[in-house]
């Protein structure tokens, strides 16, 4: 694996292997000193052209726990503000000696474009509405580990609720969940679904009430208020009536069902219930798993020839 750009580049076997590697990373993270020398001497540039808190911190923490050097770049305080081009930015950072770029950009495809201007590995940390592949990995990790079947989601029904059309999380998750055998139901108004949804291997529902009682996973997406304002798709009141998770709806979740959300949560919008009051909530577990999964991704890209477990100090 040279880059980590899209879930579509990974076979199911590769996904399963990566999640197994994340188990080792989770073990490291459970130690008193959660740090191993696996990526000592490697430099990882965290290049965020679009603001992010959790994803950036998650990647940087993952890199540090593997003993990599972290170089931090954010567009708002950089020469991008002086009109520097994408190519020049990447070539300049590359000249400083970077082994991997972790890239977030508001435009779809930028991580892929960047691969032509560097020999370093490129990790997609979210591009436009396109892909957020490490989010899909950490969500798959969370689901498979909770249900105990590490290799498959067969027989599981996962509802993804919210703005599918503009969501990179949805695109990555739908691909991974369906290929791992889950049945995916998208719950959104038509205006927030992509135009060619019939070509995706999913079904749709027009309100959360239709699905909440019989899903194994209820996956809520963040609703961006500005989208609603700019497109006048549907009023916020109508949206929350049909698509928000209320206390009443949360109570209808099956006892084994998981509640997930990629964050940040919009309390009072899509989340009208306190997630800490929902027994099935795995929202904070997702965040913790994100570190293990991102360690696995960075190690797969930069970890060299030796067997992962040995070089991770598995016997420590």
């Amino acid at each position, binding site marked *: 694996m040279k880059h980590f750009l899209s879930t579509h580049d990974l076979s199911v076997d590769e996904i399963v292997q990566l999640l197994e590697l994340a188990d080792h990373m989770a073990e490291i993270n459970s130690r008193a000193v959660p740090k191993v020398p696996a990526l000592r001497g490697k430099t990882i540039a965290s290049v965020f052209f679009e603001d992010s808190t959790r994803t950036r911190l998650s990647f940087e923490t993952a890199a540090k726990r593997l003993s990599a050097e972290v170089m931090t770049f954010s567009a708002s305080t950089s020469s991008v503000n002086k009109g520097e081009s994408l190519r020049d930015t990447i070539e300049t950072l590359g000249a400083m000696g970077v082994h991997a770029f972790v890239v977030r*950009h508001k*435009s*779809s495809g*930028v991580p892929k*474009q960047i691969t032509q201007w560097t020999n370093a590995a490129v990790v997609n940390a979210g591009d436009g509405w396109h892909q957020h592949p490490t989010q899909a990995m950490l969500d798959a990790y969370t689901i498979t580990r909770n249900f105990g079947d590490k290799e498959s989601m067969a027989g599981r029904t996962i509802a993804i609720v919210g703005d599918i059309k503009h969501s990179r999380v949805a*695109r990555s998750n739908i691909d991974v969940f369906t290929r791992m055998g889950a049945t995916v139901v998208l719950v959104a108004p038509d205006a927030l679904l*992509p135009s*060619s949804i019939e070509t995706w291997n999913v079904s749709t529902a027009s309100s959360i009430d239709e699905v909440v009682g019989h899903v194994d996973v209820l996956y809520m997406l963040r609703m961006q208020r500005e989208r609603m304002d700019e497109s006048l798709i549907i009023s916020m009141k109508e949206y929350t009536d049909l698509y928000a998770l209320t206390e009443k709806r949360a109570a209808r979740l099956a006892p084994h069902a998981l509640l997930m959300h990629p964050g940040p949560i919009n309390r009072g919008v899509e989340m009208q219930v306190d997630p800490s009051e929902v027994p099935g909530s795995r929202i904070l577990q997702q965040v913790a798993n994100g570190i293990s999964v991102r360690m696995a991704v960075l190690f797969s890209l930069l970890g060299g020839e030796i067997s992962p477990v040995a070089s991770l100090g598995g016997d420590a």
Partner: protein
Amino acid sequence: MSETKSIVIRGATVVNPDAVFEADVRVVGALIDAVGDALEGDIVLEGKGCYVSSGFVDLHTHLREPGKEEAETIESGSRAAALGGYTAVVAMPNTDPAQDNVATVRFVREQGIKANLCEVMPSGCITVGRLGAELVSYSGLADEGVTLFTDDGSGVQDEDTMKRALVSARLANVTLAQHCEVSSLTNGAVMHDGACCSSLGVPGWPALAEEQMVQRDIDLVRATGAKMHFLHLSTQGSVQLVRDAKAEGLPITAEVTPHHLSLLDELLTSFDPNFKVNPPLRTAADITALKDGVLDGTIDAIATDHAPHAGHTKEQPLDQAPPGMLGLETALAVVNTAMELDARKIVELMSWNPARIAGLDMRHGRAIAVGEPANICVWNTAEVWEVSREGLASKSKNTPYHGMNVRGRVRHTLFNGQIVVNEGKATR
């Protein structure tokens, strides 16, 4: 002054509207002097295995001068045209300043004359500054020889403005050429609105945006009786609308680009901005429909929409990079590779018809016959070659065909009786 040397094109197959036959062709000065067997001349151009026909005419070329000389100049674009077998190109008016006034139109024509590689025919704008509001004086520019008017890059959105434009165009006996795109449906659009677009997560360019304006303009042509040319049609629906309008007898012509006949929207999965173009690459069903339109005469002309962009502008994110791709040097080969067309049909689509639509048919798009102007190209349909962006004469390198093998090549081009391309190389 030296004596005028005669040029003989030896052993090629002449492609004329009424006949296709083997013959040598001799050019003396700016005219064809003889067509026959075993002709002698001072300079001999090998034509064995090739066709010889009137030079190609491109209805749709962006030469970028004045305003964006870093992307292309009239000279570099004219050289690219000559290498593609073109002896005349219609220069699109979205320059800076725009070609909505006599001075700019004259400048473009004169730069073309100075380059002396092909005839550069400036088009005019439909509206002042291409802003879609105030009409340009068509008769004023018609006096400068402008025959084709377009706001290419955007369509004229307002119905009443377009209707008045057609009425004025009819009075001035000029042709309006529409870039069909309802802009309110393509805000921020990156690629064809289909399965691939949904998967890549970029704003879509619906077929409807084109078809709605094609339909509207057909209705306006019916109402006004003015002539209309449709630029770069790209969808199945557009082809059917034009087919029906022609069957009704309306004075409509239409063009298609080589890239819309050959490239699928799926190429954008690479996120390479060299595949971003307006209108966007569409689906296999659209390509099939466009080919059917070419074969049954619904489509009159192949036009390149040659659109150079400086390298750094195509290195931006896909949603910010400007749309457009090079076309002049690859047009014949791409069309010949994409479709099985006989030589006569190729010349009809690339020379005779576009020359007539552009009002250039006194000098271009004519038969290979004694006394005719020597605007000629010699080309084949068999030679396979690999397109390389470094090998192109255009100042920009944004070809979508880099690294692809194509079939068919221009060997020689004569403009006004002068050899501007010899064995596939520009002579100046």
